């Protein structure tokens, strides 16, 4: 069975529920501290041994500077290995703080090259200028490029809760958004309860084009601000007592899609 790395450092705090999401589906996940892949620890681990690496949510290193920047800068010592990892079509995903790390690292938006030295996007401070924790509705708009969400039909609306202070995706370069749409790199967009694209609070941070999640051009690097791991089961949905559903919540198919791919 292919191995999954749940990568953490001080301040990562959504690793447990992320790890459990894989375990519940019999995935072979393990926690890895960043020291272990940076060869700063006796219990060394190697990126190449994993089929999928997930960077969970949290406040890595406190996020006192731009969110995710320190995690990304520590990871950038492994640039060569990361590029190889991506080019071998393995899966690299980031949720919330993990998404911020992937953008800071330059592997997202991931147009053309696997890792771009030039920054093409940034996840900046929410329009409200506050950390906010609220349920958000997302439309799955991906046409099939993104490996992480293949279990969701196109236009399916899901509830994933958001909890962040810096989730507003802004692009550099006038045609970046256009190119991404053309490449089928937009994965989730915030909507209101009628399924329309709307402003705050439905779009909790003021993100461009209501974007909540994107993937790279190959479809194997994926970042998302809201938290699918918090809605693995239906009973942690924000409205489960009024809108009954089955055992599983909206987040489960995301982890199932990953396992479909890495375990064949």
């Amino acid at each position, binding site marked *: 069975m292919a191995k999954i790395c749940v990568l953490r450092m*001080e*301040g*990562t*705090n*959504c690793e*447990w*529920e992320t790890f*459990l999401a894989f375990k519940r589906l019999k995935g072979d996940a393990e926690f890895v*501290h960043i*020291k272990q892949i940076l060869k700063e*620890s006796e*219990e060394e681990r190697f990126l190449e041994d994993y089929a999928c690496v997930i960077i969970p*949510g*949290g*406040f890595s*290193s*406190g*996020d006192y500077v731009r969110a995710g920047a320190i995690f990304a800068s520590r990871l950038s010592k492994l640039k060569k290995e990361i590029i190889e990892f991506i080019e071998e079509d393995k899966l690299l995903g980031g949720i919330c703080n993990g998404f911020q790390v992937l953008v800071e690292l330059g592997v997202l938006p991931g147009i053309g090259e696997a890792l771009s030295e030039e920054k093409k996007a940034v996840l900046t401070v929410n329009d409200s200028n*506050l*950390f*906010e*924790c*609220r*349920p958000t*509705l997302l439309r799955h708009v991906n046409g099939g490029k993104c490996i992480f969400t293949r279990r969701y039909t196109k236009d399916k609306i899901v*509830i994933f*809760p958001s*909890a962040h202070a810096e989730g507003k995706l802004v692009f550099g370069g006038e045609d970046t958004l256009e190119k991404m749409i053309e490449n089928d790199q937009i994965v989730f967009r915030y909507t*209101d*309860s009628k399924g329309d694209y709307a402003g705050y*609070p*439905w779009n909790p941070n003021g993100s461009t084009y209501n974007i909540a999640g994107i993937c790279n051009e190959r479809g194997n690097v994926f970042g998302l601000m809201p*938290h699918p*791991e*918090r809605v*693995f089961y239906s*009973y*942690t949905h*924000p*409205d489960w*007592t*009024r809108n009954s559903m089955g055992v599983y919540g909206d987040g489960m198919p995301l982890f199932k899609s990953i396992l479909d791919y890495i375990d064949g």
Partner: protein
Amino acid sequence: MNTLHLVSEVDLIGSDDDYLRRISEDMGLGLSVGELKIIEDYFKKRGRNPTDIELQSLAQAWSEHCCYKSSKTLLKRYILIDVPQNILMGEDAGILEFNDEYAYAVAFESHNHPSNIEPYGGAATGIGGIVRDVVCMGATPVALIDPLFFDPLKGIKSKFLLNGVVSGISDYGNRIGVPTISGMVYFDEDYVSNCLVNVGCVGIVKKSEIIRSRAKEGDLFILVGGRTGRDGIHGVTFASAELSEKSEEDRGAVQLGDPITKEPLIHACLEANERGLLDGMKDLGGGGLSCVIGEMALAGGCGAEIELENVPLKEEGLKPWEILVSESQERMMLSVDPKNLKEVLGIFEGWDLLATVIGKATKGRSLNIRYGKEKIYEIDLNFLVDGVRYNRIYEIKNKEEKIERFNEPRNYEEIFSSILSSPNIASKESIIRRYDHEVGGRTVLKPLQGEIGFSSHGDASVIKPLEDSYKGLAITSDINPSFMKINPYKGSLSAVDEVCRNLVSVGSLPHSLADCLNFGNPEKPLVMGYFHESVRALGEIARELGLPYSSGNVSFYNETPEGSIPPTPVILGVGIIEDIRRSITSDIKGRNPIYLIGETREELGGSEYLKIIGVSGVVPDVNIKVLKRSIEAILKEMARGNIASCHDISEGGIAVCLAEMCMGGNIGANIDLSLMGEMIANRRFANLKISDFQMRSDIKLFSESNTRWIVEVNKKREEEFVEDLKDQGLGCTYLGKAGGDGIRISDKKKGLINIPLDKIRDIWGKGLEKFLR
């Protein structure tokens, strides 16, 4: 190194009262002359004067904050008796039975004084401390609770305090990854002197991994986590006195929080404990190193030796006494058998955390401290830890409760709107959303409940702490300070009643309580009288309900020359729900019948309604037997699937309760009050004519009588529900039906309120928001 100039002898023996008073003031000890004389006597018998470090350490251990010298007598008389069976242990946190394999831990305390001087840091380190209290029992923290009390947001100071406190909780709690799921925000003019910041934490622990705060002879003391600095010096002595305009100078008594050291520290401590490598663990909070090592050694029946020079410091130049009493954050003390030392150090190294051996547990019963080669400290542990105790004089004087006559309002909609937008009733969404309430993925019921985008206040939150069990913990906290100001006895009963109401509303059986008792200066007999009446009531109701107080804290001296706070005993309640998939929320689900459970009386004293019209009334009482029966009956109805939603009636009465239920469900209601109030309005008026028993509509709508709920009954089960309640001998009154897009309330064909839901949401939603930015 020459330590002579670092430690000095204090000339206590034979000094007069004036000199003793001056010593206490100059050294910032906060000890009384009488206390210093006890200390003088102790050292006289040993033929020497104390060193400054010895005196400082005693001052910390003997502070009100650490040794409960004013409250211990009354707490023992009323609260800490007949400890029920489900309390497994009580140290830094109380430990209670969860299931065969697991227990839950509860800790609850105040961080008032620091938060008044430095709201952001004070609130943040309050969270930090309470989380350590739970972790040091070996428990994984799964929930945070934050009851807050402020002056109404009129002046710039109260906005500064509220914003600082909320940001502090948000920034710290969110970073360490523990969800903030419950709490309250209350406004009253009498908090102008001090705001209150109470913090609670609930954790879950395998029974076999519960660890004590003690050391065994031969153990090494390992200090782990943060470095020690000058922040947080004299924190406990500062918290054991009234604040004054000079208190700003004491900002050094407030600690600095570092959540990014705390987050891995939690993991590393729990990992070391799970691997069975620790003999004891205790958090470093109030009073610093000497308190912690003293208590661990005393509990383990041994003595201790500390090498103070080994303590890792933030900056150079700290005097030995400063190192000893510093309350720097993010530190824990482990007692470890030498054979496990290497493995423990390895775990902390793996998380990039400091871990340093600073001493060992020895034979004997004293604490000895060395700095370099010099011995600078030797005190018997019993003398250090036991402290002193006072029987403070109290005077019980309740304000007269009288019903003032006033006219029935002409315009109910106007009164209803002012109540909805008053800061105690208005939506707290703008604060709640700043706390991550679902990190961990365990939060089943959130603080805001209902349709996405339209949610409203719930009664309690529910956590599913274990992966392999559907059993859950419901958590809430309550107090109504307006009741307390008029009648501390009934106010305290009401707090426990409300906690039970909230826990039952979500479908859980009340299981344990914790109390954080915030009062003014205990040296004043009136304040002590409030305290006496409050703990008497808390003890009485809990005993009758069979609920234990698992954890608690007393915070005195919440006053300044401007005045004292209202007596504020905050009660935290934990309920057990056997299957979280059966939890009930407060939002209306469909076009179902709506019933009132419980008796409405003319009890408007301290109510939001009377506050607005400015007259006085009688504070709600509690009939504990009826409360007990109601809890059983409602839970039974829920188990039978008869109840679709449930909400407790508290501030603002039936009117506000209905509004919150309708807003959450985004469904209106048509209500007729005419079936209410046929019962005897108030027993005090039993000699009045029958016509006087017809209760006025404003009293029906806005009375805040205890032990009441509004339930939405599944329409197919209505008959069964009514029969069941009758069998239980409980009053239930048909109020009307859910439906439509507005709230319409009438009484005997007289229309009182007819407002569209959107408008109600707007009034309620913006009540507080306008103050916050």
